[in-house]
């Protein structure tokens, strides 16, 4: 018997979590905490990502899950609580559950929207090994008074992809970054720069994917 925990109060817990995600998207790089709900048994995601799925997915959304992340009771719990549809085609996905490694070449071709309808794009929901304030990545753009820094552990392929957003604006991918109970967002408009000193550090494989 799989355990499929979810929000204890779907209406208000969902609203509270949405406001966290909205605040994260409005001020890219700020950290927000979602301690609940408990995640489905053996799932490879944390409470922050589970809460995001529960508060944004429903019958109208299609979710693409990277191979390896569908482990445990995740897909069963998702169908049970949200009724969202799973898709095997990344270009059809409203949301995509990924790790930074998923974006390594050859990366799945997610929807980027068009110049006339840039909102018809895939939003990445990212499972990270680390997410903290730091200097590894410097962010600038709307919602950031000067610059803001984040440490994301080993996130090279993801950040290369997100940094490329700027050149295609307004088309692009928005990302909701999560690690356990922590959550931040990186919309397509954010300008991303790697801190050179940290890139050298990343080249030595001290953290495992």
């Amino acid at each position, binding site marked *: 018997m799989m355990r499929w925990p979810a929000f204890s109060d*779907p*209406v*208000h817990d*969902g*609203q*509270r979590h*949405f*406001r966290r*995600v*909205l*605040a994260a*998207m*409005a*001020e890219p790089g700020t950290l927000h905490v979602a301690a609940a709900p408990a995640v489905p048994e053996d799932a490879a995601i944390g409470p922050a990502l589970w809460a995001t799925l529960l*508060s*944004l*997915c*429903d*019958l*109208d*959304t299609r979710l693409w899950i990277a191979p390896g992340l569908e482990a445990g009771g995740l897909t069963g719990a998702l169908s049970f609580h949200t009724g969202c549809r799973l898709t095997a085609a990344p270009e059809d996905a*409203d949301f995509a559950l990924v790790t930074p490694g998923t974006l390594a070449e050859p990366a799945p071709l997610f929807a980027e929207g*068009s*110049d*006339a*309808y*840039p*909102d018809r*794009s895939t*939003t990445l929901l990212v499972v990270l090994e680390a997410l903290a304030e730091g200097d590894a990545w410097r962010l600038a*753009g*709307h*919602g*950031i*008074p000067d610059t803001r820094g984040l440490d994301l552990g080993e996130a090279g392929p993801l950040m290369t992809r997100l940094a490329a957003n700027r050149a295609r*604006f*307004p088309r692009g991918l*928005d990302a909701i970054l999560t690690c356990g109970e922590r959550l931040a967002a990186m*919309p*397509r*408009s954010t300008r991303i720069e790697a801190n050179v000193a940290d890139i050298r550090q990343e080249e030595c494989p001290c953290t495992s994917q």
Partner: protein
Amino acid sequence: MNGYNFAYLDEQTKRMIRRGLLKAVAIPGYQVPFGGREMPMPYGWGTGGMQLTASILGEDDVLKVIDQGADDTTNAVSIRAFFERVAGVETTTDTAAADVIQTRHRIPETPLSAGQVLVFQVPIPEPLRFIEPSEEETRVMHALEEYGVMHVKLYEDIARHGHIATTYAYPVKVDGRYVTDPSPIPKFDNPKLHMSDALMLFGAGREKRLYAIPPHTRVESLDFEDHPFEIQAWDAPCAMCGARDSFLDEVITDDAGGRMFVCSDTDYCQKCREEVA
């Protein structure tokens, strides 16, 4: 709130609007289409703003509603009563005490702070609509960043009146990309959009569009080097509180030409009078 879901809208509608809001914030100034719902009031009374408010409002939020700056006019009183009834939230007239402020055609004089959300009621979200009636065409114009006509419109003002005569719904460029209608706020309020600490959301119910200006975002009012953007100014202070830094409404006091100018922001005017007293 018997018989209604919290904040009137059903959860699936809220989620649809919430997903739209995330896109709107990610692409500042871009108009996101959404499946507008019928609200228990006619279009033109703020159905777009109400749907946004209903989708973001939480049980712990304190709500303020203003109409042309005033807390005590019909539209503001009705919408405030509506959310008291269907969401049971606390309401206030104090700008600083509010978490969510729904507004029709003004930005409060009291500077907004981080964490506050301002929800605008928008009649016509498309700034290019009066120049180009086709939605298909304006979509392409936004896609190609083809905004020359907007300057032609402002130039025609100068040719006819000697100055830019647009006084409200004055077009802005958000984050250097999208030309956006700030809703019919007086141009006096345009500078408050620039690098605001608060999140600003815009909802148009009839047109079924929503858009956003996130905090700390560049917002420029369109102008010319030789005709720079200017805001309204008055010769006299507010006749009730003496403020010189607020937007004033002209009030006719008799049928013999008597008139006075008073703050349009009733909360601000009240606070100023309390300070003097």
